[in-house]
């Protein structure tokens, strides 16, 4: 049980800044997901907690202790690697036992603990096999077992599901969450998969190009992204980001003018002092195809996903818009001119086109 604190942590590899001035707190017992595209520095953050990489600046604390100069083996962390990194020459039992053996725990206790862990991960039948004789999912469970066997104060998981097939990934995702909640061990989980992040994380830290963009619960992150990067990274389809100019309408109210029409400025921003140009963030489920809609667009394609359909359309300046609708509703044909309206004005967000930051509600 431990908190993890990053204070102004930086790491560079040669000219490349992998992690830039990271300040972040991981709460005791939570599962924090580090989410970002490949090469954004999220794995480096994890490796610095493990002690495999040393920060160039700043401090990392695990619990009350600053660990910058502590050897990996003295940090009381366990890590699950993307490749699993099992010991190929050892049986499953020996793999699970390895961390206990290295800590000089005596044999009866080792066997008891390994037995329990194997039982909880359904590995009992496989204890005498070598990793090469296991399936991907079984190897993944051994890697997980090796991490939990000595009850560390922190779990670090580096894309542990990315080598599994889709169905197994969904199942294992739930198993890891259940396990983590049962053990209540502080966990940092790295992934580039936003679905994984949304479904597993108590909180998500979104990282891009080494810089922390936002830390929030999945719900808050989805509803109120801090900037266009987060808005575009989360959600499937991601938030529609449409450039607009701010103008005064016929009745004197502020309107947002697009290439294909105009909509009233969202109520939350009504008293705000808006810049001349903004980027309007529209979630695909808060807009709809409607004959009276103020925006005109051309349908490019419709994607049927089963229960829902994604209508992909273009405003006449080329801006792409995705509308999510129920599959039972009639979908527009390709090339058809459609009208779109905003269904939930409260969910419309405005971003500054220069900085990309979300404009604060007044």
């Amino acid at each position, binding site marked *: 049980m431990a908190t993890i604190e990053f204070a102004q942590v930086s790491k560079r590899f040669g000219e490349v800044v992998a992690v830039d001035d990271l300040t972040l707190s991981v709460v005791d017992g939570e599962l924090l997901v580090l989410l970002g595209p490949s090469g954004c520095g999220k794995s480096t953050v994890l490796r610095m907690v493990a002690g*495999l990489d040393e920060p160039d600046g700043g401090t990392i604390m695990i619990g009350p202790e600053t660990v910058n100069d502590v050897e990996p*083996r003295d940090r009381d962390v366990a890590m699950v690697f993307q490749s699993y990194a*099992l010991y190929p020459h050892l049986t499953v039992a020996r793999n699970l036992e*390895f961390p206990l053996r290295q800590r000089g725990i005596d044999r009866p206790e080792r066997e008891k603990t390994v037995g329990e862990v194997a039982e909880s991960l359904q590995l009992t039948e496989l204890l005498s096999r070598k990793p090469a004789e296991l399936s991907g999912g079984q190897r993944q469970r051994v890697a997980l077992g090796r991490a939990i066997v000595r009850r560390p104060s922190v779990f670090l998981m580096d894309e542990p599901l990315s080598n599994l097939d889709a169905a197994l990934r969904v199942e294992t995702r739930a198993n890891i969450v259940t396990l983590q909640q049962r053990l209540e061990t502080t966990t940092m989980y790295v992934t580039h998969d936003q679905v994984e992040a949304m479904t597993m994380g108590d909180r998500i830290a979104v990282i891009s190009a080494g810089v922390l963009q936002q830390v929030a619960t999945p719900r808050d992150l989805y509803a109120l992204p801090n900037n266009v990067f987060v808005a575009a990274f989360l959600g499937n389809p991601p938030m529609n980001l449409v450039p607009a100019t701010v103008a005064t309408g016929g009745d004197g109210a502020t309107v947002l003018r697009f290439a294909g029409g105009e909509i009233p400025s969202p109520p939350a921003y009504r008293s705000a002092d808006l810049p001349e140009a903004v980027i309007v963030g529209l979630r695909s489920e808060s807009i709809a195809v409607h004959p009276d809609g103020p925006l005109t667009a051309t349908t490019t394609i419709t994607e049927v996903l089963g229960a829902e359909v994604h209508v992909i359309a273009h405003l006449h300046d080329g801006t792409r818009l995705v509308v999510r609708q129920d599959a039972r509703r009639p979908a527009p044909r390709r090339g058809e001119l459609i009208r779109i309206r905003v269904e939930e004005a409260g969910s419309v967000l405005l971003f500054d086109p220069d900085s990309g930051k979300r404009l604060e509600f007044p």
Partner: protein
Amino acid sequence: MTFVDLHRPLRRFSTRRRREALIGYAFILPPLLVFSVFTFYPFLHNFKQALYETPPFPNQPSRYVGLHQAGHVLSSSQFLQSLTSTILFTLIVVPLGLFAGLLLAVAAHRRLRGIGIYRTIFSSTVVTSVAIAAVIFGTFMDPVVGLLPWLGINTSPPLLENPTWALLAVALVTVWQGLGLSFIIMSAGLQSVPDDVLEAAEIDGASPAARFWHVTVPLLSPILFFALVIGTISAFQSFGQIDLLTGANSAYLHTDVLTYLIYQNIQGQAPNPGTASVLSIALFVMTLMLTLIQLRFVELRVHYAQ
């Protein structure tokens, strides 16, 4: 094939196969000729020559003595001493060579500025000739102008004239000579040990020594085994440095390994090709047996990645 089909496709197929076979034979012909003349023929000729004895007088024809000569040679005290020397020599050279090569490889297996210079130095003995190495080390150990006496290591009689130390001295030169190859093999092996497995061990609480013995060495075991087999064979065949450093005194200095004894029976004072043949066959059988034993027993402990 139960019946012969005389239609054209099959005939074309068979002439194509014949043409491919001919090309194949054409490719192996040159090496086959070379091997036949310099390896297969002498090897087989040995078995015949072992049955003939050459009288110790010049210009006398060899005479057939059958297995009598083999029994005589293999029970001679000269052979038994030579066998002991060979085994001792191998027991020093092989483990020391493997361990030193591995140690250097582990030391050089890290990303550091200028590490390439060390790698070049460590592997340089591969391109050093035995003769030059022997001359250099001979000078090192020379009682008058050598480095060792200057450092205060001054045995009496001098190292290379001392029956107690000569074999060790010659063995150490051999280890040095083989170090480059051993280093290169071990370095190549280390490349195949995955970094994340070592990192996992580090997080799992293994000390550097534990990581070396419990992770690196087992994962390196196929390479270690390979190096053990070829190292043993090459130790059995060492000759140049022994001849150059201890020469004619080998028997007295207990550095008379089998290859040296074979050489003496061909080029020495009283040449006896028959005896040399018996010794060659003995060396061959020893090498073969040892390799089979290694394959049968040591390999059981080798972990091959799949």
